[in-house]
């Protein structure tokens, strides 16, 4: 500790190693990932997010949805993500290729939101999501500031949310999804990891071990 430059150099080097190893190292490993071209269907996967959905990701990020929701499915056998119907396979880095800012999340106070549009047995529709966002539920806060209540002038808006009971607006008014709500819902319905990439298949550990087992 008596040697001043050596001390500072040591500090610098320690953090440089850590940064280069983790950040640059994983960039070296994943930075050159490309979409996977599937000859069977003649398309490459993953597809880019549609424009509306890509903007919705910004809404998702600025509202901090990741405080309660994850967007990552763990491999079968690790946790019960498959049993809950969140996805058939684990999420891999390629799934997030076109996400401007992946929102993996670290807390599951609410359900995982990967593959929302292909949920079994019944996937929520855009209408369902708007209703949940507007009215909230026992476990989900409402986001009324994403909606606008206004009087119906002429024809009803095609973005009006169909509501019943206490939440319904008074006669002659309608609750209309703002642009932010529309993009957010479009985003939620477009986050998916449906395609089977080679790296997403589980390791054939059992079949490799089976000849050993037979002996």
């Amino acid at each position, binding site marked *: *500790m008596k040697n001043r430059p050596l001390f500072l150099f040591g500090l610098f080097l320690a*953090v440089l190693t850590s940064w280069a190893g983790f950040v640059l190292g994983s960039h070296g490993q994943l930075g050159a990932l490309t979409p996977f071209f599937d000859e069977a269907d003649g398309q490459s996967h993953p597809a880019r997010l549609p424009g509306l959905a890509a903007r919705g990701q910004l809404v998702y*990020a600025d509202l901090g949805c990741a*405080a309660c929701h994850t967007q990552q499915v763990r491999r079968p056998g690790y*946790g019960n993500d498959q049993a809950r119907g969140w996805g058939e396979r*684990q999420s891999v880095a390629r799934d997030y290729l076109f996400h401007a800012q992946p929102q*993996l999340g670290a807390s599951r106070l609410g359900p995982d939101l990967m593959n929302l549009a292909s949920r079994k047995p019944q996937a929520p529709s855009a209408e369902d999501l708007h209703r949940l966002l507007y009215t909230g539920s026992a*476990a989900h806060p409402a986001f009324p500031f994403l909606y606008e209540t206004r009087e119906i002038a002429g024809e009803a808006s095609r973005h009006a949310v169909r509501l019943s009971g206490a939440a319904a607006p008074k006669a002659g008014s309608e609750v209309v999804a703002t642009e932010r709500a529309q993009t957010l819902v479009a985003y939620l319905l477009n986050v998916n990891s449906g395609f089977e990439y080679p790296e997403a298949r589980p390791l054939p550990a059992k079949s490799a071990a089976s000849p050993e087992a037979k002996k």
Partner: protein
Amino acid sequence: MSTPPTQASAADASPFDGGARWPLTLLAGSALVWLVVGSLLALLTGIQLHTPSFLADCSAFTHGRAQALRETAFLYGWAGNAGVGLGLWILGRLGGHPLRALNWAVVGTVFWNLALLGGMVGIATGSMTGFAGLQLPRAVQPVLVAAFCAMALPGVLAWAGRKREGTYAAQWYAAAALFLLPWFWTATQAVLLWSPLRGVVQTIAASWHAQSVVALWLMPLALAAAYYVIPKQTGKLLPGYESAPLAFWTLIVVGGWSFGRHLIGGPVPAWIPTMAVVAQCLLLFHFLVIWLNFRGVLAGGSVTLQYMRFGLVAYVLTGLAETIASFRGVAVHTQFTLFGPALETLLLQGALSMFLFGGLVHQLPRVTGRDWALPSFVSGHSSLVMLGVVVSVLSLGWAGFAQDALLNHSQTPFAEILAQLKMPLLLHTAGQFALLAGNVLLLVAFLRSALSCCQAEGASVLRPASSAS
């Protein structure tokens, strides 16, 4: 030591503290204001956990934003200001010269807090970045780094121009923290904000940063305070001090490696969580040495030592619990549950804050030259925050274990899970309320002390002739 806990003994006064009085008081004051703001937000997010509709229709305080605000106010507002204030003070005292370039520190502090305020408003109005631990809007981040460099300047000068040849552990930790934050924060900004990496590599970089903020910046500042204050308060040499460099270098070298424990099972290369296990196991040496060095505080004594004792126990417990939770077999139960926030509370409120409280309660009377004006408020604060942390951590841990059974081993719907967690989450809110009440007491005690110091100084300015004679 026979001196009452909140009094500065005359023998301990340093001739260097007078010049640094106002810059250091400014840092401590801003820290305490942010602490109260952060506690208020923590109470808000705590209530939202069991009553999701609470303030949900107010876009600025919807749960996601309130969480980001709470985290930002705590880390960059409270711990940052308090840690830098203590770091500068320690480097000045141990360096053997009065602190130089303090006007830089004042300007830096003002800009740091203004930028932070701007950042908080930005988060509340929708400019949050969406990286956990780094939610501050991109526009204020470079300002914060620049302001930090100005704040740290007197510390760096004191380190570089120190009189003595030998150095103390408190100096290593303080100098390292001041030196490292600008370095790794700039690196993170480059790869996240200005030329973003693609896909999940962003998440890796953001988690690395969040880990480094605590392990390489805030915790070293808190440990510097503990290394400096504990021997002063116990009046004894630290036992096992010759191992202190081991603890220091272990933390600096592998402290940033263990972020992968939050990414287990995620879409990241598998070696990242594995390195986290390695790092956590290596860090056990750090925790062991810290325990050996600080074990003198277990006997208790002054209020300062009680803070330090709580901090030490919480720090070592977090280290052990995080090591266990970094193994995949354990993480499958704890991941994504409230067990994570429980450990975070133990580390940040239990260890980090307590070391900083101990440091501040020791520092302020020496800097202002007079005792705490309301010593009963200070001891009230210590009882309330200790109670609050214990209640909060235990209730979140309880909620985490209950949540694991419901989330990972059954198909229970989320509304049902929340209903079953109501009891521990209400207790957690009670813990956060105790923390808020305690922190308000400390702020009041601080303001009262600063005010009386201010009045005394004003009086002496009015009578220059009598003080000169």
